[in-house]
Each structure stands twice: as structure tokens, then as C-alpha cells.
């Protein structure tokens, strides 16, 4: 580059690189400053959801289900996370499991509680969804719909490997069996999707939780000590 050209280019470099570096520094400072609060918010939101889907729970332990079907408290281990919840004395209340699937607009992510003692789903919360406001988002708000999940039967058959009855979403107010979900008028796809997501997730998770029940319960006693 010859003299006059580089002289003209210098102010441009100065402006772009200088502003870029100052902006990068500012972002780094704000990121570091807000990170603890953001992580705390996320942990609190998850904790609220875990306690909401497992009534009676007072403490929780995050566990990992490894690829070979074992449960480990080592959260760094490769595998899928779930939360086990216990009462004040360290007795196992149940497990809170995340599940997701396609809704009407986009993926719906749920957290549901499973109680091994009653072999039921004890509640669910929507963690993320983009369902239509006023219609599809009734899956989060409609009290009649949410009442379906206070004790939704997911008991295992004799083999202990699969559910005795698959969860089924039926027409509004047509529920006659404990494994059925009353759908929502105007939110058919969204309410079907919730049933679908739970069916798929429980079919895989429930046998594994039941199999590892003693191991999970032991974590609660450790915690209470």
C-alpha cells in the first residue's frame, strides 16, 4: 500500500478496531457481572418447577442417568439430567423429568413429576413453548386441563418394562380412565402434543426410574444426613 492510501485507511482502522475493542470489553464486563444473577434465576425457576410438579417435596438432588441405564450423582458424568425430590426426612417423593416434542407452533418443553409410590404423574409445568396466546397456551393455564395431571396413571405392566396403558388424550370431558387426558377445545393440537410428549417420555423413563428406585432413594438419605 502506498503512502496516501494508508494515510486515508488509518482513521477507518482506528474507528472500527477501536470501537470494536471497546464494545467487546463492555460486553465482557456486563456478561461477567450479570452471569451469577442469570444462573441463580435459572436455578430458582427450575427449583420452583420441580417443587410444583412434585407436591410435598422439600429438597431436590440433580442426578444423571447414564447411557447404560445407571443413576449417578456425578453431574459432570455424560448422560441425561433429572431431579429427584425428597420430603424433609429424606424420603423419596419422586422424580422430575424434562421432556420435549413438537407442539402447534414450535417445540414444547415440559417438566413433569413422576411418583414411584403411586405410579402416577403428579403434575407438569411448561418450561418453554411458543403456542398461540389465548388458545394453545391454555395447556399452561386451563385449570380443568391441569387437573388431569394431579394423578395420571403410568403404572407398569407385569414385565416392568413398559406401561400397562399408554397415555391417551381424549375429547374434552370424555375422560373415563385414570390414564386418559381431557383435551382442550380450541387447543386440540397443543393438548394432544402434551399427551404425546408424556407418552413417549414416560415409556422410556418410568421403567428406568423404577429399576433405580433404591439407588435414587439412597441419595435422599445422604442428603438428609
Amino acid at each position, binding site marked *: 500500500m502506498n503512502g496516501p492510501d494508508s494515510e486515508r485507511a488509518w482513521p477507518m482502522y482506528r*474507528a472500527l478496531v477501536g470501537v470494536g475493542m471497546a464494545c467487546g470489553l463492555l*460486553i465482557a464486563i456486563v456478561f461477567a457481572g450479570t452471569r451469577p444473577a442469570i444462573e441463580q434465576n435459572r436455578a430458582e425457576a427450575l427449583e420452583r418447577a420441580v417443587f410444583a410438579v412434585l407436591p410435598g417435596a422439600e429438597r431436590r438432588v440433580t442426578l444423571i442417568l447414564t447411557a447404560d441405564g445407571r443413576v449417578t450423582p456425578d453431574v459432570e458424568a455424560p448422560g441425561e439430567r433429572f431431579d429427584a425430590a425428597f420430603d424433609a426426612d429424606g424420603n423419596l417423593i419422586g422424580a422430575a423429568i424434562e421432556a420435549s416434542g413438537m407442539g402447534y407452533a414450535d417445540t414444547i418443553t415440559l417438566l413433569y413429576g413422576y411418583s414411584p409410590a403411586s405410579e402416577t404423574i403428579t403434575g407438569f409445568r411448561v418450561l418453554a413453548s411458543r403456542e398461540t*396466546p389465548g388458545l394453545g397456551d391454555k395447556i399452561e393455564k386451563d385449570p380443568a386441563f391441569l387437573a388431569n395431571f394431579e394423578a395420571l396413571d403410568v403404572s407398569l405392566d407385569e414385565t416392568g418394562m413398559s406401561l400397562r396403558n399408554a397415555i391417551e388424550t381424549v375429547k374434552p370431558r370424555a375422560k373415563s380412565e385414570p390414564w386418559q387426558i381431557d383435551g382442550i377445545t380450541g387447543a386440540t393440537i397443543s393438548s394432544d402434543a402434551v399427551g404425546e410428549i408424556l407418552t413417549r417420555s414416560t415409556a422410556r423413563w418410568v421403567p428406568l426410574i423404577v429399576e433405580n428406585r433404591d439407588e435414587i432413594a439412597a441419595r435422599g438419605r445422604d442428603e438428609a444426613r
Partner: protein
Amino acid sequence: MKPVETTSPTDEFVKGLWRENPVFVQVLGMCPVLAVSNTAINALAMGLATTFVMCMSNTLVAVLRHAIPRQVRIATYILIIATFVTVVDYTIEAISLDLHRALGAFISLIVVNCLILGRAEAFASRHGAGIAMLDGLGMGAGFTLALVCLGGVRELLGSGSLFGVAVLPAGFEPWIVMILPGGGFFTLAAWLLLINYLKQRRQADAEPVREALQ
């Protein structure tokens, strides 16, 4: 846009509220206006976030206006705007996860709000830092006002509440269309109609006076 000669600092602030209101007069930044005005609280949060970004970027652009060569000015402005948007994004997430979820992708999209780049290019790059900050504050206040006007009407008719508090009787059947995207267009059209009607009437009132003076 026609540059308006203004002198007093108060005027720089007030012009954004009414005479050059970014939404009702300039019809700028329609993407967040239509998308995030389904409730009054979302509208208010979006308005405040935009105001902060505009205020800070206007000030910084005005401070650096002599150091930025013409050829790279747009790139530099975008860099500055994007930085403050990222700051706002992190801050909102730290304050409330629920609010962050409700505003979703639209916080990041403040970067491409033509209103902010427009003010940096048309105003802040030609004025001092103090005046540019006031301009950003005024335009932001006007933007927030307009968003809340839309969000208030949409929430009232669409959910029967205002700022999350139920105000209409329980028997009221919510107009679901108002919280869907279509409701945004209807409400914006109604507000533009009202404001243009008021303006025309005011002009018509002023006409005989001007004639009498000539």
C-alpha cells in the same frame, strides 16, 4: 426525512412524543411495535429497552462523530447499537427470566430497529452529546408511549386486563384476535386513524387564523 430546525433542549425531547412520534408519525420500527404489544407490560419493557439503547448509542455516536470516517460510519453505528442491545439482553435476563422469555427474540432484534440507526445517522452524528442524548430519550419516550397505547388496548380487549390486573367484569368474553398478530395491525390502524383525524382537525382550526393574519 426533513430535518426540523429546533433550538431548545426541551423541544428536542418533546418532539419525539408528539410532532415526530416514531410510531404514530414516522411509522418506524413496526416489527417490535406489532409483535411485542400484545400486553401492556411487554410493550412497556420493550419500549424501555429500546429507549435505553437509543439514548446510549445516540450519546456515543455524538461523542465519536469527529473520529468516525464517513465510509465506515454505518458499520461503527451498528457495532455500538449491537453492544448496547447485548447489554440490555443480559440485564433483562438477570432481572426477570419470565420477562426475558416473553420478549424472546425481539430484544436481539432491537439491533435492526431502523428507528435507532435512523436517529444515529440523521441526528446524533450531527449534534453534540447532550442534545443527542435528549433526542434519544425523547424518541424513546415517544416509542414507549406508542407501544403502551397499543399494548394497553390489545390487552384490555384481548384478555380483559391491564398490566396483568383484571379490569373488565368476569362476564367479558376476550377478543382473542386482539392478542394474535392480526390484532396488532387493527389496533395500529385505529390509533393512526385517530391521530391523523386529530391532526387534520387541528390544521383546519388553524387555517382561518393564518388567513386572517395574512
